[in-house]
């Protein structure tokens, strides 16, 4: 795969050569002046300017929508006019209303806010100018990762600042419901998509035609989150494909020559919503988006959040990527305006492409020193963090060791060369004083203070409090998991199989990849390349040697291997908790609603009894991922898809997986051919 390591770090990577702090100028000149700057972007050459009203009209008059409306009218017995009217209402609810005036207003406000929140906003200027060229040549899709609400407008802000066309942005409908904010976002180019569309045929038709029309017209870049939602774990989420299908269809059907996908990696030193994240993961529901909620949260504006990096990835040509992968002649027979279920070939391709984009986002992200520190902190026993304290000098030493390792791996590490290493780490610690504290040269985990109560807190409450802080640490560790995950899976394979044979290791490596396919992003069909990368990286840092078909751990390699292995251990342990929970499940049918509490209870029990050490087992995200993985591996079957899904568990299969994961089944016996489920 050519783009695997192409975009990421060169060994001599220099942060300041690539990134420019765009707040720097703003601090020295008038915000109003910036907001009122002449804005004269060069749009896509083939595109005509298109107002929101024209867009709506084009969509409503499209053959596709007319056809679907007729079909629905026939099915439901209502008149075509009624259905069309419904479509119009849907469109009104959905559509953006991009206005330059509002962009200026937003720009003015955002400049103020950003300057307050962030020490700097670094933007990769090289790729920004590449983007400028791409925008003129083909329709462009901006695909940022989604870690914070701040993501939402920062790209528009940058585009405005650098004379690029303002994108229209796919957003969740709850945002539209917020007083004022919804309208402001709408006029800043956001369009709104309902969360659970299900089988609402008309809605699908309106949405897909709307999206496709934007792509075809190419008058503005389209921006959407391929992960589908904001990641609560700060780890990439397995991409959602619905929107991706809509976006790619104009290319597949030959309505545009090419489409350019631009993965955008937004990296935060500290995420505004960090305290909310672990709340949600522990089952405290996400607060409904509301304007008052936002104002309450405005207390976050008093705090500081370090630097933010926005790295526009190298533009990916869909045409190039799909060359030889897809036969577009399949669209020759049915009129292109008619809805058509994508073939298996197309689905696989779209999924692959979405994974490539998310993989590229990961490649482009900038790793903070704090993320490295959390990798190490989390490997200490919990009592060290809560009671004894992690010795500062030890953390410093290990972090510097890890710094060397990741630089060797060739990642973008935001480690300032201007200040001393210890200052870098100290300031990271200060930035994150809500999670960790340094007292007498030891580092302690900060746990949320319970209101002073008379009686001592229950054991369960104490577990939850610890878990909250641990999950926050884990989130920052997750920011760099993608750097380590491949070598880490190899390290785990080496440890569990106790084998040196490359083919056995590869088989186990593939098993781990398929088990953790919802946890980490692996591009389908690339197991072999991933394995080779893993070998290469571990070899590069001297942990292993490779003889023709053997992998041999070198004498000095143990430290590196055990570090990698420990990174994965929380996930293995958490999955084992799910497996145990399902094995205990009586009867073998359970519902969505039963699943999470059951696993959480078991996890709490095991944590208290000391049988499980990782508090990450309490993360609902991990639990859901493990359930998805089990479905994929056919150990759990979904009985009916409705609001309250029912599942049936195949206990023997689950036990099998559990045994294999703990090394109780010889690898050979269970060899699943690679790619069998992809």
């Amino acid at each position, binding site marked *: 795969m050519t783009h695997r390591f192409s975009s990421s770090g060169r060994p001599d990577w220099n942060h300041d050569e690539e990134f420019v702090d765009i707040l720097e100028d703003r601090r020295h000149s008038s915000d109003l002046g910036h907001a009122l700057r002449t804005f004269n972007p060069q749009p896509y050459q*083939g595109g005509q300017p298109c107002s929101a009203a024209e867009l709506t009209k084009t969509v409503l008059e499209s053959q596709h929508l007319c056809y679907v409306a007729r079909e629905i009218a026939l099915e439901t017995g209502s008149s075509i006019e009624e259905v069309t009217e419904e479509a119009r209402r849907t469109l009104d609810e959905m559509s953006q209303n991009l206005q330059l005036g509002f962009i200026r207003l937003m720009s003015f406000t955002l400049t103020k806010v950003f300057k307050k929140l962030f020490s700097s906003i670094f933007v990769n200027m090289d790729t920004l100018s590449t983007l400028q060229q791409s925008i003129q040549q083909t329709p462009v899709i901006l695909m940022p990762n989604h870690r914070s609400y701040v993501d939402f407008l920062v790209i528009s802000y940058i585009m405005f600042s650098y004379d690029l066309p303002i994108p229209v942005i796919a957003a969740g409908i709850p945002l539209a419901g917020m007083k004022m904010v919804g309208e402001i976002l709408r006029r800043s180019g956001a369009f709104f998509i309902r969360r659970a569309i299900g089988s609402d045929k008309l809605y699908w038709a309106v949405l897909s035609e709307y999206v496709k029309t934007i792509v075809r017209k190419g008058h503005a870049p389209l921006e959407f989150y391929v992960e589908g939602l904001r990641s609560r774990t700060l780890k990439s989420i397995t991409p959602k494909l619905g929107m991706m299908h809509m976006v790619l269809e104009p290319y597949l059907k*030959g309505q545009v*020559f090419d489409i350019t996908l631009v993965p955008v990696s937004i990296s935060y030193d500290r995420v505004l919503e960090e305290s909310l994240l672990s709340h949600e993961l522990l089952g405290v529901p996400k607060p409904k988006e509301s304007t008052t909620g936002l104002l309450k949260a405005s207390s976050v504006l008093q705090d500081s959040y370090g630097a933010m990096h926005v790295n526009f990835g190298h533009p990916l040509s869909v045409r190039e990527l799909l060359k030889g992968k897809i036969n577009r*002649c399949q669209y020759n027979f049915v009129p292109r305006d008619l809805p058509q279920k994508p073939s298996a070939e197309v689905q696989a391709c779209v999924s692959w492409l979405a994974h490539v984009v998310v993989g590229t986002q990961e490649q482009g992200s900038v790793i903070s020193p704090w993320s490295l520190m959390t990798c190490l902190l989390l490997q200490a026993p919990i009592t060290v963090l809560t009671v004894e304290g992690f010795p500062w000098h030890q953390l410093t030493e290990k972090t510097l060791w890890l710094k060397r390792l990741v630089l060797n791996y060739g990642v973008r590490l935001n480690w300032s060369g201007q200040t001393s290493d210890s200052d870098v780490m100290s300031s990271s610690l200060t930035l994150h004083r809500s999670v960790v504290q340094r007292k007498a040269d030891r580092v302690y985990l900060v746990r949320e203070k319970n209101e002073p109560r008379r009686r001592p807190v229950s054991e369960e409450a104490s577990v939850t409090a610890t878990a909250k802080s641990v999950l926050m640490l884990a989130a920052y560790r997750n920011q760099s998991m993608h750097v380590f995950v491949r070598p880490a899976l190899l390290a785990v394979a080496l440890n569990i199989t106790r084998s040196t044979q490359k083919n056995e290791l590869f088989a186990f490596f593939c098993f781990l990849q398929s088990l953790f396919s919802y946890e980490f992003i692996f591009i389908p069909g690339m197991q072999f390349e991933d394995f080779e990368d893993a070998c290469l990286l571990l070899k590069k840092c001297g942990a292993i040697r490779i003889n023709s078909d053997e992998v041999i751990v070198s004498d000095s390699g143990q430290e590196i291997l055990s570090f990698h292995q420990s990174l994965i251990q929380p996930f293995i342990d958490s999955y084992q908790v799910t497996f145990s929970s399902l094995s205990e499940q009586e009867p073998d049918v359970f519902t969505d609603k039963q699943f999470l509490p059951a696993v959480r209870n078991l996890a709490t029990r095991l944590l208290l009894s000391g049988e499980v050490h990782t508090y990450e087992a309490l993360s609902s995200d991990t639990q859901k991922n493990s359930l998805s993985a089990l479905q994929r591996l056919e150990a759990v079957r979904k009985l009916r898809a409705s609001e309250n899904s029912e599942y049936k568990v195949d206990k023997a299969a689950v036990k099998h997986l559990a045994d294999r994961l703990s090394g109780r089944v010889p690898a050979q016996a269970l060899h699943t051919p690679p790619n069998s489920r992809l």
Partner: protein
Amino acid sequence: MRRLPLTPVTASHRSAPSIHKHGSSMASNISGSSSSSDRQRVAQHRLRVIAGHLQRSAESDSVIQAAECKASVSESVAADSETRTVPRRRQEIMKWNGWGYSDSRFLFNKKGQAEFTGKRYRLSGLIIPGLKDWFEGTFGANLQHKSPATPILNSNATHPPNLNKAFVEELKSTGVPFSHDTEDRVFRAHGHCLHEIFALREGKVGRVPDMVVWPNCHNDVVKIVELATKHDVCLIPYGGGTSVSSALECPPEETRSIVSLDTSQMNRILWIDEKNLTAHMEAGIIGQDLERLLNEIGYCTGHEPDSMEFSSLGGWVATRASGMKKNIYGNIEDLVVHIKMVTPQGVIEKGCVGPRMSTGPDIHHFILGSEGTLGVVTEVTMKIRPMPEYQKYGSVVFPNFEQGVACLREVARQRCAPASIRLMDNEQFKFGHALKPQVSSLFTSFVDGLKKFYITKFKGFDPNHLCVATLLFEGDREKVLQHEKQVYDIAAKFGGLAAGEDNGQRGYMLTFVIAYLRDLGMDYYVIGESFETSVPWDRVLDICRNVKARIIHECKEKGVQFPPLSTCRVTQTYDAGACIYFYFAFNYRGLSDPVHVYEQVEHAAREEILANGGSLSHHHGVGTLRKEWMRETISSVGMGMLKSVKDFVDPKNIFGNRNLL
């Protein structure tokens, strides 16, 4: 406006054609034009130049029976052979390594102005002032950088003929003329694909036929095919030699003796049936002769493919040809009533000439498009029509290509397409413009300037986006004028402005001279080619944009140093779609293997066409050039059907050009 100059051409035309008239009276409305306008003179001139070189044989007005072979008289007119339209020795009047007549070519004169030599065409002898700038500007070419062709064919360039002695002996006894002269053989070893002409210009010759035979009639062909089958000789039929699908290339793996069967001497109109409006011809007759001869007695077939100066009736049948005026007259499959073809299994033909039959799959459709793989088409009965009373060119300028396509689509929807309607994109419009000959009067140039001002300044058309549709109306004067109004009214709805007859006519001229222009390009490091497809209406815009973009994209990727010319026109309309014609050319300076690069780009363009729902070919055919896509074009079962027909009709693969399958 002009009337058709129907008066017989005087020039050097010696004698009336050999026609056995079977019907009664001639069409009544034939009359000479009285107008002596400049345009008419020009039109007459054009007909004259097309006719000028057409020397008919001296057998002239004697009545000839349909079945009679003129082999018996061939000896007596042998001395006269150089006066035939297409002589046996084609090299006497045509270029051996380029397009068309030896006396007609573009060149840049000492002043650096382009001119077209000879006397045959409207453009002949004229200076074309805009061409140099267009040429240099479009291709980044430079008149200082020449890439001249090898002037003469080196007779050592070919292998000695591999003759099948027994076949040759028996052939001699039949009296059918043949030759194994190098020039004759080389001439019939190629069509007009870029790689073929490029190689000839470099003096490179691949496998060529081992001998050439010139049958004079159906019976001669029967004898030749029998002998070939008997002695296992490979036959490759040759008509006008205008193939652009590598259909005439000798298969390099062929070890048998290859005989080129040149039908050019089978060129008589055998009879005309005025009651049923049909004519029966030998299949070797070429388009311009057929039209001219029929015109002389007030008829036409209306079949005018762009290659009609050289392509033959048999070739049209064998490739499913399409004519410019198909909207009125139909394509070749609509025009043929009866076909006679000689195959190794014998002669295939229908038992009657009923206008339509329900008798199983139409056997004509095994023959139409068989590309010389099954046999030789020897005689064809074809529909004829009285000549149109009135003909008028026209043109419409649209602000952009999208509007133009929308207009053509509407015209097709209302089924009111004129005899021809073509929409050229902006690049092709500029190309056509560059071919404007020097205007003699100050007034004309003033009017031109005024028109340009009106369209670009007053109407606000962007000169880099506007495109032009060219029109040709035919029929009764009244109806033509009515029709014209209808079409212009539709055009107006799509923002189209009438832009005069001259622009229209020049558009059609482009298609006749384009092949000559390619030769000029090749003198200056520019190579190019055209290719075509047909596509449903809703995909027209997409395919045009994508294919043009793909060409530009691939050229860049393959290291072409200069931006290519990548242009298209919608050249035919149908109820359910349109035919699209692409021109593609680039400056190859700096490339070590330009032809290979060219082929890669063309291949990519064809892939793009197929991916965008276009057909493999609308009328050029498959040949060996596009064979690789046949399976996906007609499915495996379809391939099997064609294969089984081939296996039955020609089990020994006598017709071994390996086209199509």
